[in-house]
């Protein structure tokens, strides 16, 4: 493939055009809108301004939303790692049916995630399955209020994003040579010690990749909080969406979008520093 591309440089044009039109162009629009005070229409004055950004940091409401979004994203990422790791480890090292199970893991993706999210609504609503079972078993008297809470939002987000964590983890763990674990055991490490020293250590790149794949989309998500969350569990995605679609203030929406993108970048940067990923990547060039 790469040889084909090398010899026929023109083959890259369609992909490049696609990228230009659907990625670079919209991004440029957002970048421009974020720094002006009006729509780009003939007959209106257009001024360069930072006001769109200042509003975000001046209003307590928006800062609260920003904080909540980051908190929800962190919790979701943490629990998806916690759930995905054992599953990925099982798939990579403990079963020979991993290929089939990976496909099975993908089956829910054949159904649109909005529909799956509505299904959660049925499960956790006041007269949903969970409450019905708990009341009929006399564990609770009053139905629990799960739907329209931050908990429900996190639940929905973990549910939709955990497979995104499983796949990169599975890929890295299955690439770790079993003989490394055997060597650690042979040299006197206990089973748990060998797991931490070898498997966990060498799968940090997978954890990192999974985190990027989960944290960023979760930070910007709007559909799941809109369906499962209440007014006090809105996320930034909801604000951005309403600015573009309901309010019609593209300038403010664009500024918020850029802010969110910068926050994501910054967090990933800090995270990679914290994990010392450079050194891991360097070591894995085998």
């Amino acid at each position, binding site marked *: 493939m790469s040889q084909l591309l090398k010899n026929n440089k023109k083959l890259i044009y369609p992909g490049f055009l696609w990228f230009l039109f659907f990625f670079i162009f919209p991004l440029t629009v957002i970048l421009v809108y974020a720094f002006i005070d009006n729509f780009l229409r003939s007959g209106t004055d257009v001024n360069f301004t930072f006001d769109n950004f200042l509003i975000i940091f001046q209003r307590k409401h928006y800062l609260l939303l920003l904080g909540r979004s980051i908190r929800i994203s962190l919790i979701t990422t943490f629990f998806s790692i916690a759930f995905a790791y054992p599953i990925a480890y099982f798939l990579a090292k403990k079963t020979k049916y991993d290929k089939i199970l990976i496909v099975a893991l993908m089956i829910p993706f054949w159904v649109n995630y909005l529909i799956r999210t509505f299904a959660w609504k049925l499960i956790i609503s006041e007269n949903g399955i969970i409450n019905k079972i708990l009341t009929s078993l006399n564990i609770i008297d009053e139905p629990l209020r799960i739907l329209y809470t931050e908990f429900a939002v996190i639940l929905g987000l973990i549910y939709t994003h955990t497979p995104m964590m499983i796949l990169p983890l599975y890929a890295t763990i299955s690439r770790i*040579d079993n003989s*490394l674990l055997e*060597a*650690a055991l*042979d*040299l006197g490490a*206990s089973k748990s*010690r060998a797991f931490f*020293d070898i498997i966990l250590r*060498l799968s940090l790149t997978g954890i990192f990749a999974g985190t990027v794949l989960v944290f960023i989309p979760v930070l910007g998500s709007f559909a799941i909080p809109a369906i499962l969350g209440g007014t006090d569990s809105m996320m930034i995605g909801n604000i951005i969406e309403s600015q573009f679609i309901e309010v019609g203030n593209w300038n403010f929406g664009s500024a918020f979008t850029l802010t969110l993108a910068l926050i994501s970048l910054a967090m990933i940067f800090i995270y990679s520093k914290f994990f010392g990923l450079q050194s891991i990547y360097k070591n894995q060039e085998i």
Partner: protein
Amino acid sequence: MEKYIVELKNVVKKFGNFTAVDNISLKIKEGSFFSLLGPSGCGKTTTLRMIGGFIDTDKGDILIDSSNMKGVPPNKRSTSLVFQNLALFPHMNVKDNIIYGLKKRKTPPDIINEKLKRILNIVNLSGLEHRRITELSGGQQQRVALARSLIIEPEILLLDEPLANLDKKLRISMQYELKEIQKRIGTTFLYVTHDQGEALAMSDTIAVMNDGKIIQTGSPSEIYNHPSDIFVADFIGAGNFIELKALKKLGSKEFGNENIHLKDINDIQDNVEDRKNQPEPLTNQSNHVNEFESIICITKAGGKIIHRMKKDNLRKISLKDSAQNMVFFIRPEKISLMRNLSFKADNYIEDAENGTGSRFLRQEDIDSKEINFYQGIIESIIFEGPDIRLVINSNQAGRLKAEVKNERFFLGLTVGSSIDFFWNIEEGTVFF
């Protein structure tokens, strides 16, 4: 009394219907270099991994230092394994790899440093302790793996074809190094390989395995010079296998007796029966001759090979029902070449005068019945540097591979020229 550090007693291991290790028993002397040699799939690696504790045995016992290892995990055994792919930890540098085992044993730092220093010296890696594994050459990685296993001072070091991934020159220099290190530290090495040259070069004892069984155990020279069956003969080194149709007995008296009595194989059997009933007749011959007996092997092609063999072995053959599937085996380098007397006689004498005349045979040597002497035609010549390999076709012995040293004497040989060749009647083996 010599101490055996590892003992296997009737060990069996099955994977599903496949018997990987089939009732193996062996003893490994403390401080020796012991090799398990066999083709891939013969069960040698399974045996090694059972001793290391990575695989459970189905039946039988493994004793290390006289204590039974049943149910003892690898981290509780006094063994250490050098893996085929080395299994060095990619995220650690040389030093951290080597001291991993000591750290898990909670060894105090000053002792760790001391041992590290010593082992780096032994494996010749001093100064490289802060290098990444990926920055090392194949041979250096090899030595890190060795050091990592040796530093925990195992009673037995298990090596699973650790040289298999190195190129030929490096492999040979590592063979010397391994042997040298083994001698210096005195640890028992159990080495698994499919490379017969490697096993011969390094081992004190070799056990040849095939189909989950140990076929023959012995020193390298025993295994090479006296293979116990066709498999071992064929697996270790090259050889000529000449099919036989009958064995006959050479004159029962002295060798060189012109009056050769040819008898049938059945006659030999009768003879054995006779001997069982009568005490050995006392003769004035030496013991040596008493133990050995000369026979004539009749090849399928109708040629004759005189062979002197142990009487014990002859008895075993004679107990066989027929001469079917009997094979005479001789290694190529046991066949000596000499130029045809009729061919360039002048050069021949010149060679003799120059001191390379050892290939000059006198008629009386040929007549003595101490050698098999044939004439043949050279069918092919392969020049391999130190050695020259030839294929010789002769009416009496058939098509044979021969191997001679690269000496001036042989340089003039060409395909199609006729050549005389011979071997001592004590060389070779009859398999039945």
